[in-house]
């Protein structure tokens, strides 16, 4: 270890516990890491459980039978102890690779209504947000998933943090 560094580095009291805190120590710190990704997809909001009039009055323009599209932004937040060896909650390369293959490749440039994920449910941004949360929750194990936030446009966004939250 660098003793010069030790000399000039001030020791601060830790706010949560009041003890003196030294970065070289094995002090545990939990941080939240958020990463934003873009993908584009089309959808049509239409429920087979409703009449045509009901669909029209519920979904308005989004019920257009030809569909329409959005540039979605998905913001994934994971948390965990900052690894003292790497300074990271998890390696960003692992998170990026997972989201690329499991989320962006699955939904990007697709018509959501044609996907098996939406065979049984309407591809609203709420449902898409929950689906993405569940994909990450099931498959990504390098850090704890806190929440998924999905922006459909600059004006609308949805957040899901699991059944309990």
């Amino acid at each position, binding site marked *: *270890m*660098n003793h*010069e*560094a*030790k000399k*000039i*580095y*001030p020791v*601060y*009291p*830790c*706010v*949560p*516990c009041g003890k003196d*805190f030294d*970065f*070289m120590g094995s*002090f*545990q*710190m*939990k*941080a*939240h*890491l*958020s*990463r*934003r*990704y873009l993908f584009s997809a089309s959808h049509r909001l239409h429920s087979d459980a409703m009449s045509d009039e009901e669909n029209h009055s519920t979904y308005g323009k989004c019920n257009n039978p030809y569909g329409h599209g959005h540039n979605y932004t998905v913001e994934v*937040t994971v948390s965990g102890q*900052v690894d003292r*060896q*790497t*300074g*990271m*909650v998890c*390696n*960003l*390369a692992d998170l990026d690779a997972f989201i690329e293959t499991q989320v962006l490749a699955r939904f990007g440039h697709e018509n959501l209504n044609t996907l098996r994920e939406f065979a049984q449910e309407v591809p609203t941004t709420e449902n898409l947000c929950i689906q993405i949360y569940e994909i990450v929750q099931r498959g990504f194990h390098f850090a704890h998933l806190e929440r998924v936030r999905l922006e459909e446009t600059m004006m609308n966004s949805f957040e899901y943090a699991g059944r309990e939250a």
Partner: protein
Amino acid sequence: MVYLTRKAEFSASHFYHNPDFTPEENRRVFGKCNNPNGHGHNYTLEVTVKGEVDPRSGFVVDLKQLKEVMHREVLDAMDHRFLNKEVPEFLHQIPTTENIAIAIWQRLAAKLESARLHRVRVYETPDLFVDFYGEP
């Protein structure tokens, strides 16, 4: 309880390297960020403090004081610096966004009087940010 957030920006360079790793491990774990000559970012800092509104001033915190502390403790130390070589914390800590957020929290928490620090958020780029709530 009311929450108040103040933003600031700073630009700095850094690289990621752990002297306990072999050169191959360093390259594998840190990728392009391992280049010892460094690279830079425009960081955005968001500091959120919380407290009750003072009935006399109507303030949660004296914004002037918050701004001064942020300037003195964070911007003077980190803006236009090579983090690995000029900021004491990072002489022996890797200046990842996580560690930058923790270091900023430590610097501010020791200096903020009236209001309690709630969150330090550091954006490395618009699509990558870290939140630290002082949680162990």
